[in-house]
């Protein structure tokens, strides 16, 4: 193992939080770390210095206007090769999970996705990754010389360690012709925060009784600037959109605080939220399985508890 390449992503102004997390994780292995980011301006990248990144390559492809999994994967693999990087780290988000397998195939590398732990032991990386929807975890290693990993967002902590960062901007010859699939439009969920990006997620289950009552959940989420989630039962009933479903056949989230209201706690749901840092459950059934996995539980009627809880939290947050 010689050198680590971390694939970074920007939002409009700086970098995505997941990028700071993988830079911070990469620093802990005692290997040189190079960042790579595609089609951004230098000012966006500078902040990575705060997280200990010392070297970063900006690859600009003048003919490539939008994200393209095929072209981006080519740029990443080429950069890894030309810089002698044999370990490539991605954030396990939408882009990372699409790019990492392509890059692994280009580099004849083994790839372990969605790692929640990564450490070096006896000269090799040992990864832990949730399987069976989080009901179990495997401990695995990669046998090939080149190795690719993606790290689950919100699990690795972004830690600051100011460094001096040298940025090299290169023009990539990979462009439009390599973009056999490309993004032609981007639709942001207007004013709505995604469960994958939120620090606080408030979800409801069948106990909410109907879509008209979701206002309670929205109000509580709003106090935190958080996102609204839903159990599978609620989505299957057509009360909430698929994009909000948390669980094994929905999204896997690890927010700082997860509030489950009127959710009994089927194994499929718990698989999607069990890595949350703090879990608060509200349910009128004291025997609901959710109370076995939560940090705090309120046994009561959510229609009475949630409005009071919302007011009290609002008072603290001022």
């Amino acid at each position, binding site marked *: 193992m010689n050198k680590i390449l971390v694939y970074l992503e920007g939002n409009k102004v700086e970098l995505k939080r997941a990028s700071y997390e993988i830079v911070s994780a990469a620093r802990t292995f005692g290997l040189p770390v190079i960042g790579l980011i595609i089609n951004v301006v230098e000012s966006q990248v500078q902040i990575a210095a705060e997280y200990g990144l010392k070297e970063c390559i900006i690859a600009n492809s003048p003919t490539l206007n939008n994200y393209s999994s095929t072209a981006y*994967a080519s740029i990443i693999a080429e950069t890894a090769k030309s810089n002698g990087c044999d370990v490539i780290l991605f954030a396990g988000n939408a882009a990372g999970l699409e790019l990492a397998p392509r890059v692994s*195939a280009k580099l004849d590398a083994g790839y372990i996705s969605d790692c929640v732990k990564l450490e070096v032991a006896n000269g090799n990386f040992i990864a832990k990754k949730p399987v069976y929807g989080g009901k*179990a975890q495997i401990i695995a290693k*990669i046998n090939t010389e080149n190795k690719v990993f993606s790290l689950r967002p919100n699990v690795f902590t972004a830690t600051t360690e100011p460094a001096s960062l040298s940025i090299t901007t290169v023009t990539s010859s990979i462009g439009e012709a390599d973009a056999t*699939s490309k993004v032609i439009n981007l639709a942001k969920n207007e004013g709505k925060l995604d469960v994958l990006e939120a620090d606080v997620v408030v979800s409801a289950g069948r106990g909410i009784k109907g879509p008209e009552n979701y206002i309670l959940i929205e109000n509580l989420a709003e106090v935190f600037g958080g996102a609204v989630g839903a159990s599978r039962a609620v989505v299957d009933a057509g009360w909430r959109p698929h994009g909000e479903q948390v669980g094994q056949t929905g999204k896997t989230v690890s927010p700082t605080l997860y509030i489950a209201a009127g959710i009994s706690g089927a194994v499929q749901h718990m698989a999607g939220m069990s890595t949350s840092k703090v879990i608060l459950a509200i349910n009128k059934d004291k025997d609901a399985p959710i109370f076995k*996995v939560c940090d705090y539980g309120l046994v*009561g009627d959510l229609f009475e508890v949630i409005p009071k809880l919302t007011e009290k939290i609002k008072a603290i947050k001022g």
Partner: protein
Amino acid sequence: MNILVCISRVPDTASRVIVGSDGKTIDPQGIKYIVNPYDEIALEEGLRLREKNGGTVTALTVGGESSKEQLRTALAMGVDSAVIVKTDSSFDSFFVANNISEYAKSINPDIILLGKQSVDFDSLQVPSILGELLGLPSVSVVTKLAIEGNTVTAEREIEGGKEVVETSLPCIISAQKGLNDPRYPKLPDIMKAKSKPIEEKDAVNSDERVTVMGIEIPLKKRAGIILGGEDKDIDEVVRLLHEESKVI
């Protein structure tokens, strides 16, 4: 339209998982196996494409003899033919993608549909690796698909929104919930599927790229302070969130 749909056999999502005696796999005792739920969505999309454009749908699985059960489900749903690439050993994502690639080369499909992930190892690797091996574009985690001539427009979920991706046939699409609601096979079709032929191929071996060293059930290390629903209980929870776990 020549449509290939790849499916896998996975434990029912309601299954409880127990570590097996080898410490590396789960104990199969008492587990009910199903078609991977995302692959069912891929199957449904394949059938709808055939209904609209004509052509054939082939269902493919890489796995052991028991995976034929899932191919029978695909046949009952309405696919034209079923193929099993047989292996008895354990395998990684590259092995699966490589074997799908080998088979795909023999039939040159216009489109390959797969679930976005299989709910056993949750690796989300096969569609994109397959794209590289076949030199084809792919779009992952697709919730909406439109095909006009050779032009493919797919919507895919990203954090906080959607990307609309344009590509062209032949291509690979990985299906996410929301793309469609899979049909339930009808009883007469389930009966008929039992006697339909399943083509068998031997798997091509590849060096193991990823080795599973062990499997464990994560410890539940939650404090679990359970209170009532009175005002004083809500006050206490707010205090705990504020002072103990410091999330407010």
